[in-house]
């Protein structure tokens, strides 16, 4: 794992600026996908995570444009709060639903935000969106040529933080409770724990992660638009969640990196077949690697152990 972190820290020295840009976005979206995965572990499919994603991004946009706050150390917690706050509101309703109804209601909420962002041109800029000017860190303006690098390291640091928090979450009683809820909710209720509360707190945490990812992507791209709340954005997150796998906190990030690179290179290679490529990959994952790309890790480890055992004989 330390090797992996070292790799990411030194990546900018070896790779081009554009790849760093894609990596930063992949990490930021990976944070959102981690939020989706945490809910998937509880058996809940969130088709509306674009709501928190857009909430975080637009909160940052408003702070930068309306209130002229440039400080990244303020904007990051703001995006967390925006996402978590939205989730705290919608979670009150959503914690009572399961399965397809949870998915449809969460989709509906995200589409409501989309329609508000889309139509209220005077407030949100409509389909034009809002611009994100460069941010400062502790009052210092990063030089324009270093901006890419700055955002990449910001994303990396936050990703490591989120990985730590995610690991603590899944190893905590709440994390195990979510897994139990997925398999037999009634038994969990009979044990005396409140399933609704467990789902609610997981949901708020998940929403906060969504908001954080949204804010980071807003920084990187420099622009926010209503499409961040559209159902296709939410579907992309669920796509990456299944692509990476739901077994591990690292999986969403691996999935997100694979997704972003495939998307970008497929588009470069052939502009009219990139969606088909992604669709084909999703089908391959569903049919041949249902535990996601991260499960390849387990497969490789098992093969290595088998090979080692065979050597001993």
């Amino acid at each position, binding site marked *: 794992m330390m090797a992996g972190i070292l790799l990411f820290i030194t990546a900018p020295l070896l790779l081009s600026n554009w790849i760093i840009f894609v990596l930063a976005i992949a990490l930021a979206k990976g944070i959102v996908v981690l939020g989706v995965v945490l809910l*998937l572990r509880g*058996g809940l*499919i969130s088709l509306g995570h674009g709501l928190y994603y857009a909430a975080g991004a637009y909160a940052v946009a408003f702070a930068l444009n309306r209130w002229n706050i440039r400080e990244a150390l303020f904007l990051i917690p703001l995006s967390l709060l925006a996402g978590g706050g939205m989730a705290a509101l919608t979670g009150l*309703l959503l914690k*009572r*639903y*399961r*399965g*397809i*109804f949870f*998915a*449809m*209601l969460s*989709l*509906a*909420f995200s*589409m*409501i935000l*989309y*329609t*508000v962002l*889309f*139509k*209220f041109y005077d407030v949100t800029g409509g389909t034009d969106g809002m611009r994100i000017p460069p941010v400062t860190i502790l009052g210092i303006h990063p030089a324009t040529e270093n901006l890419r690098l700055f955002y990449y390291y910001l994303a990396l640091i936050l990703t490591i933080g989120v990985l730590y928090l995610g690991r603590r979450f899944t190893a905590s009683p709440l994390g195990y409770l979510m897994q139990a809820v997925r398999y037999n*909710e*009634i038994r969990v*209720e009979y044990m005396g724990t409140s*399933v*609704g509360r467990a789902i609610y707190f997981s949901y708020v945490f998940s929403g906060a992660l969504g908001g954080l990812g949204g804010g980071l992507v807003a920084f990187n791209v420099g622009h926010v638009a209503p499409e961040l709340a559209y*159902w*296709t954005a939410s*579907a992309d997150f*669920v*796509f990456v969640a*299944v692509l990476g796998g739901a077994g591990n906190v690292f999986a969403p990030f691996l999935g997100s990196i694979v997704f972003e690179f495939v998307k970008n290179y497929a588009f470069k290679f052939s502009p*009219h*077949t*990139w*969606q*088909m490529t*992604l*669709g*084909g990959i*999703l*089908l391959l994952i*569903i*049919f041949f690697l*249902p535990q996601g790309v991260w499960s390849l890790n387990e497969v490789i480890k098992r093969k290595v152990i088998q090979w080692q055992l065979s050597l001993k004989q």
Partner: protein
Amino acid sequence: MDTVAIIVLDGIGFASWLFLISAGITFVFGVLRILNVAHGSIFALGAYMGAWLAAWFLGGQYPAWLSFPILIVAAVLVAVTVGPFIERVFLKRIYQEEEVIPLLTTFALFLILEDVVRLVWGIEPLFVDKPFSIMGQVRLAGISYAGYPFLLTGIAVLCAILLWLVINRTYFGRQVTSVIGDREISSAMGINVPRIDTFAFILGSFLAALGGAFTAPMISVEPGMGIEVIVFAFAVVGIGGLGSVGGAAIGCLLVGIARAAAVHLYPELELFVIYALMVFVLILRPQGFFGGIEVRRI
């Protein structure tokens, strides 16, 4: 008084269009228990095939009103080629899986079909406005209104009646009702459930493609038209109840009138009312108006 008349006419027109795009998806859910995201791209395929065939046809020396049966033929073509292929190759393998998997499979198929459309017909928009223009203008309640939405309403009503007849008055329909009720027992009683599944999916695809084909004369047929259609269909079936065509009809009427009212009274809320209505109904009655699914309320 004029505004009310226009709102009602607009509402019914939009509701008819919504019914054509959502009847298929709710029917397929009822039988297969799968929310078919690819429905939107089958809609787009129907639109492209319809526009292409109608344009080619209208270039000849045939009477223009024959373009309407051509649109129906286009829908049939799409349904019998794409429908069985998707159902047998992909959907049959993922029936028993947990809920995310079928949804994502249909989403993957949606992505693939979107690009298939681009590859086959290119990215330039197709225009076929002859079927729309030959329907002319109608004077009703003091206002002049386009004639084409009335055709859509007629087709929607026809589809609803035909669907009802098929489900309630044919042997196939009785089998479908049985499969909707309980797949396992139906299979035990000797019904060929996989074959019913395939036919139900073909019927659903036909409805989607029909919606697409008859939408083509109203708008420019371009890539990405399926994306918005799916989420409208989701809103309608969420309100009406998954699996219930009657519920879809009610949902369509509600959404149609609400949107028409918003367009003429509060234009900013045009799209908002659709999803606000969906949230409202899902909160009060999560299974929709006629949804047969048991909601696990804990």
